């Protein structure tokens, strides 16, 4: 049976299992209908021109995880930022692990989507926000909505600076033959509040041989109320059997500042659909990314910033380093509506190809209907600067280390935008590992 058919037929069983009479029944039903009509995206669609899901969809994915994996904190410790100083929502193969998590309801809610969807006290928030900014036309988002049940639910009241970062961890063990998981995250940040969130996708089985293929189709909705500040970090560090489709939708009210930083190092195929929508003036949106891949890995960044209101800015800065036969895509769309005068919208995509077989497709897309705006885009594709290599080698630094230093320098502007020092250290460490070097200092 094809995956699409299997999903459609699983839907009824799924709804029965949770609650057919739930308020979300209609939302789910219309979502599954949209998915049924549209199916999985194909390369015929302009927005999926460079990314094909065909080979992945051939796997016989199971839709519900079978075995519950029990893991010890000690085995996972290295993936967390802190043992105590973070809130934690931990999922293993899509199943919540309460034992490994550190949730809270003390002045703010950091808990499970499944409980938020079921309990009456969260009903108002769910009614107001769930599926409200997600694109209802998009088939993969619809598929997620139909099966939405587990994920992170974060609700921060107004005027609250969240005391420690929140870590949302999606571990995969690869112990099942083939598994499809569909996390659904909802994040509502109240007026004047500030939060830092890290979402990490991490395979525990780093060698692909012992691991079954996986597909994660994730949807995250982020709502920033007036003057809220949201720093969101995505670390994508799965093994080569894992595939990730990330759909993130950000809704910003006036004077908010939301940054989404995406670090893509792992996975067989990764597609990031990142969408920003503006509902107020003096909004700042930051979209940053570092992609370092090799082998036959594929990472596709598809961004949209919809400027609907005047006096707002958006900054996009994506760095990509591609070796072996890896392929990258950057498609950045900036849409400036007629009302959005005095918009400042900037976009940069800088790429380095380390091998003749690596490819990058970069496509800026600017649609501007206002006449008093500043918009720019720049895209570079190059090799490593030979003069810089010679300079470092001349100082006694071997080629491999010199290369790593240069690539680090190349990504530096984005690394500098990381506001959590420990996270910055972690990410530079992951980068050093990816580049296969051990530096005498923390880069």
């Amino acid at each position, binding site marked *: 049976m094809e995956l699409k058919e299997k999903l459609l037929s699983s839907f009824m069983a799924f709804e029965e299992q949770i609650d057919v009479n739930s308020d979300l029944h209609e939302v789910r039903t219309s979502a599954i209908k949209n998915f049924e009509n549209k199916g999985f995206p194909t390369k015929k669609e302009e927005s999926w021109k460079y990314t094909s899901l065909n080979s992945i969809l051939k796997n016989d994915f199971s839709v519900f995880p079978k075995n519950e994996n029990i893991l010890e904190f000690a085995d996972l410790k290295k993936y967390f930022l802190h043992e105590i100083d973070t809130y934690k929502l931990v999922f293993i193969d899509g199943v919540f692990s309460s034992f490994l998590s550190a949730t809270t309801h003390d002045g703010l809610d950091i808990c499970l989507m499944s409980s938020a969807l079921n309990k009456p006290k969260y009903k108002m928030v769910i009614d107001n926000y769930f599926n409200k900014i997600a694109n209802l036309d998009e088939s993969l988002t619809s598929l997620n909505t139909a099966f939405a049940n587990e994920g992170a639910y974060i609700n921060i009241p107004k005027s609250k600076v969240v005391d420690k970062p929140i870590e949302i961890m999606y571990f995969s063990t690869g112990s099942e033959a083939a598994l499809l998981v569909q996390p659904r995250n909802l994040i509502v940040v109240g007026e004047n509040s500030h939060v830092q969130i890290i979402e990490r996708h991490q395979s525990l089985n780093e060698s692909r041989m012992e691991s079954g293929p996986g597909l994660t189709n994730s949807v995250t909705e982020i709502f920033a109320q007036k003057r809220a500040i949201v720093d969101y970090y995505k670390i994508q560090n799965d093994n080569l059997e894992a595939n990730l489709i990330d759909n993130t939708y950000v809704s910003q009210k006036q004077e908010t500042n939301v940054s989404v930083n995406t670090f893509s190092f792992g996975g067989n195929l990764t597609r990031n659909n990142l969408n920003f929508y503006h509902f107020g003036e003096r909004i700042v949106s930051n979209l940053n990314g570092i992609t370092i891949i090799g082998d036959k890995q594929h990472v596709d960044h598809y961004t949209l910033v919809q400027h609907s209101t005047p006096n707002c800015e958006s900054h996009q800065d994506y760095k990509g380093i591609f070796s072996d036969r890896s392929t990258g895509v950057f498609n950045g769309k900036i849409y400036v509506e007629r009302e959005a005068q005095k918009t400042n919208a900037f976009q940069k995509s800088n790429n380095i190809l380390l091998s003749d077989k690596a490819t990058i497709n970069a496509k800026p897309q600017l649609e501007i209907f206002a006449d008093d705006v500043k918009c720019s885009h720049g895209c570079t594709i190059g090799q490593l600067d030979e003069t810089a290599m010679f300079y470092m080698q*001349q*100082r006694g630094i071997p080629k491999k280390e010199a290369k790593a230093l240069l690539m*680090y*320098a190349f990504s530096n502007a984005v690394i500098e935008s990381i506001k959590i020092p420990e996270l910055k250290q972690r990410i530079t460490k992951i980068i050093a590992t990816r580049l296969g070097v051990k530096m005498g200092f923390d880069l």
Partner: protein
Amino acid sequence: MLSIKNLHASIGDKEILKGINLEVKAGEIHAIMGPNGAGKSTLASIIAGNENYEVTEGEISLDGEDLSELAPEERAHKGVFLSFQYPVEIPGVSVTNFIRTAINETRKANKLEEMPANEMLKVIREKSELLEIDRKFLSRSLNEGFSGGEKKRNEIFQMAMLEPKLAILDETDSGLDIDALRIVANGVNKLKSDKNAIIVITHYQRLLDYIVPDFVHVLYNGKIVKSGDASLALELEEKGYDWIKNEQEA
């Protein structure tokens, strides 16, 4: 120490060096002068192992050891240092971290232990004082946003840290004001000993007032056409490079 015999080199189809012979002994300072495009920087690059140039004939050896098959970092490990005319900017890597990596990689290649952190700090302090470098400067990203003079001073600081056997200073005087020039020259003179050698590449005589050479060579059209003592530099300054050009074409 350095022996260059009948060196021919080209980039693409273009022959740049057309038979260079040069002998540099320990304790000596040599100046190489010449008009633009004569091949001065090319010669410096080739000694340091720049792979963009192809050596078509001749040989370069250091203390009797043929350098031609060695990568730039291997030559560096053997004590060759090139102060760049245009030092490269490396954002995100501080001067201190860069020099620490350079020193420890060199020590590793020479089968020495890493330099202990406290000793490293001590040497850094000593050498930065020698070149009148502010401590704050050392934690800045390497060459990023440095003025021309700061870049050059930083090159000589690295030279002081690495203590090379053979240092080649490529147009170190360009971009330096008179005070910086004095500081840099003073630094170089203090680093000079009877165990190392220095090749100064320059367009003008100015730097040679401060770093006095034992030998001056004039490079023109890929060849050394004249050699002499320090007075040759003064003569060149007075008569200009047309003197050499006319003599060659006559």
